[in-house]
């Protein structure tokens, strides 16, 4: 006869009915934090940011870890995340050289689409946009490419697990911002950093 664990998911969190299972979950959470930290430390992007701006680097690291630990919990507090992302987005908006949108609706929309397309290109994050480097923009490596399979797996895993609110906060809002502000930022589109780190972590544990 098959034995099923009597704890439902809700029970696990709320009533702590199964101590051993809870221990396992805590261990798993610790592992997630450890892996996420490793991803952050191994990211050349993070070092580029933190060597120039410690506060921003720590903010991104903290947000990434917070986001990465959410992916196997259904209960999480959204407000701290909203606050952190607002801060990151504000920082990105402030440090990005503004684009000229006074060239008319057509040219403006073309630029927004162009910025969006550049921001969703996986080559930008894992291969410094190689082999289709942009003209006049100094490209730099953001994540080591061996994290790419984890990212792909994690991305699809998060599609199933994350609620819409998290997607809007962690990916849609930074993408929207990057599309509007453009790429003329020394650190690149860093508001997407926490999402990629979380997706890589999720992929590893998948």
């Amino acid at each position, binding site marked *: 006869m098959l034995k099923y664990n009597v704890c439902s998911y809700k029970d696990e969190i709320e009533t702590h009915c199964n101590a051993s299972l809870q221990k396992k979950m805590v261990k798993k959470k610790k592992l997630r934090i450890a892996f996420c930290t490793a991803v952050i430390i191994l990211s050349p992007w993070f070092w580029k940011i933190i060597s120039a701006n410690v506060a921003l680097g720590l903010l991104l690291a903290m947000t990434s870890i917070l986001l990465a630990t959410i992916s196997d919990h259904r209960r999480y507090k959204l407000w701290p995340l909203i606050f952190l992302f607002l801060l990151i987005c504000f920082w990105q908006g402030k440090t990005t050289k503004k684009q000229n949108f006074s060239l008319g609706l057509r040219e403006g929309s073309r630029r927004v689409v162009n910025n969006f397309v550049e921001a969703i290109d996986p080559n930008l994050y894992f291969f410094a946009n*190689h082999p*289709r480097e942009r003209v006049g923009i100094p490209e730099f490596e953001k994540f080591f*490419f061996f994290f790419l399979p984890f990212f792909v797996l994690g991305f699809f895993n998060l599609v199933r697990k994350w609620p819409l609110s998290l997607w809007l906060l962690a990916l849609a809002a930074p993408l929207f911002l990057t599309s509007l502000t453009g790429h003329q930022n020394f650190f690149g589109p860093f508001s997407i950093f926490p999402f990629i780190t979380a997706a890589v972590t999720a992929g590893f544990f998948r």
Partner: protein
Amino acid sequence: MKKTKKLSVFLLLAILVLAGVLYFYKLNAIPAGLYVDEAVAGYNAYSLLKTGKDEYGKAFPLALRFFGSYTPPLFVYLLIPFIWLFGLKVWVIRSVSGLSMLGGILIVFFFLKSIAGKRKRLSLTGALIFAVSPWTVFYARIGYEVTLAFFVYSLASLLLWLGLKKPKFRIAGFVLLSISAYAAHTEKYLAPLLMVLLLIFFRKEFIFSKGKRATFFGLGLAFLVQLPQIFLIKTAAFWNKNDLFYTKAIANFAKTRLAGLPPVLSIPYGFLREFCSQTLTYFSPRSLFFLPDPDPQRSIPRLSVFYGFMVLFYLVGIYQLYINRKKSWAKYLLILSLSAPIPAALTGDPFSTQRALPLLLPMAIILALGGERLMVFIKKRWQRLLIIALLMVISLFQLRRGYFIFLPQERARVWGLGFKELAEFIRSRPQEKFLIDQSSRIKPVYIELAFFNLYPPEKIQEAADPAVAKNYYAKTVFTPFCKLENVDIRNIEWEEDIYKEQIIIGDELAVSPDQAKEHFFEKVFEVRDPLDILIFNGFSTNPREKCEKGLSDIHCLR
């Protein structure tokens, strides 16, 4: 026939008619000119038809020595009956590709029909997406071997997919896959790779099932078809594309970026990085929906390989593939998609639509999966029809603007506009002597002249180096210089050529206005592209005046 089936057949026919218009409208004039790769295929087919030998005098070769590229020969042999029927014309060379892409529409339709289940719209959605995609339209209208290779390879893929359930299809599938290796360089590497991958991932169906006899029979026939190719493996001709591999880029990366690591680690790391980055580009939304192929000769101005709005279809389609990943159709599609860009990813060109053409089939299917899934959200039929109509209008408008208006204007030069006019000019002056400056800036002129002036193949064969025919698969070094009747094709030798009575032809950099003035040249010929940029200049020399007015030269004494 049921009403829905009738409607489905009617809509499929409508898609084919629309595609027919897109693929064959003004085929002679768009792309403007005739690219050398088209001319060389056409002329060699003509030569084989007339003499049974190619331009070098080699009888029915296994790989054609086009400018030293040793192209697989299927396309050229298939062109022969078309040239026999209609003559050596630009539209004839290109029409084979149009027919291949029409066949491609049917392949996409039947592939999707076999996986559709209750999704009635899926197959038609796929056929429509495939038919109007810029990638399809572009390769349907050029006389390259890659389009025919795509058709043969895709048909083999379809038959092998159907063969998973019905073993009788396997034989034809394996044989066609083997034949596709004779159609283009990409398929030469891709066909065996796909065969191996299918036998590994579908071993239960192909090897350990009732139909294994059909599998082994098909594989046996495929091997027999490959025998001539195996003969070529020993020759330099088989490996002549090796120089496209990014050896230097890897070495450079290992040297500069991984200087601290030993070569045993840094070189494999460099290769892996380069290969993964190249492969990922073929799946990047930026490359697929927003940026054109970086080569101006292989792209449509202001248009990528698919329309921008299709990025939504793509993302949803990929997700569909992921959630169905355990189903055999998803597994099959995944193998097709992941293997298709491998040969292209081993070359240094970023996002080569020509080498990665086999990716078009799985991409069209993924887009159809996504498009159909998105349509489910729209409940009312009239709303669905309105959206489809709107997207079609947007797509066709973009295609018309990019392909039928901008391409013949902006890309006329790269497509070889001017060669026809040059050939006509030479034909109109049979008594004159011509010198054409064959600089590295100009594609081989001799083949364009041979094509447009219908030079007798025997004369071209006589002009070729006789050592080539004797050692056809080993002499890979190509030179575009040659002498055809009254036309000498080589670099200008300024010390001598200005003292000969002849017409010197070159591009805008061959003869500067100062040089023309200094040597008393007279302009007799000029071709400009639609943007009024000079393509060819022709000057008649004036040795008498040069000797009379210029400084005395040893040549004047002769």
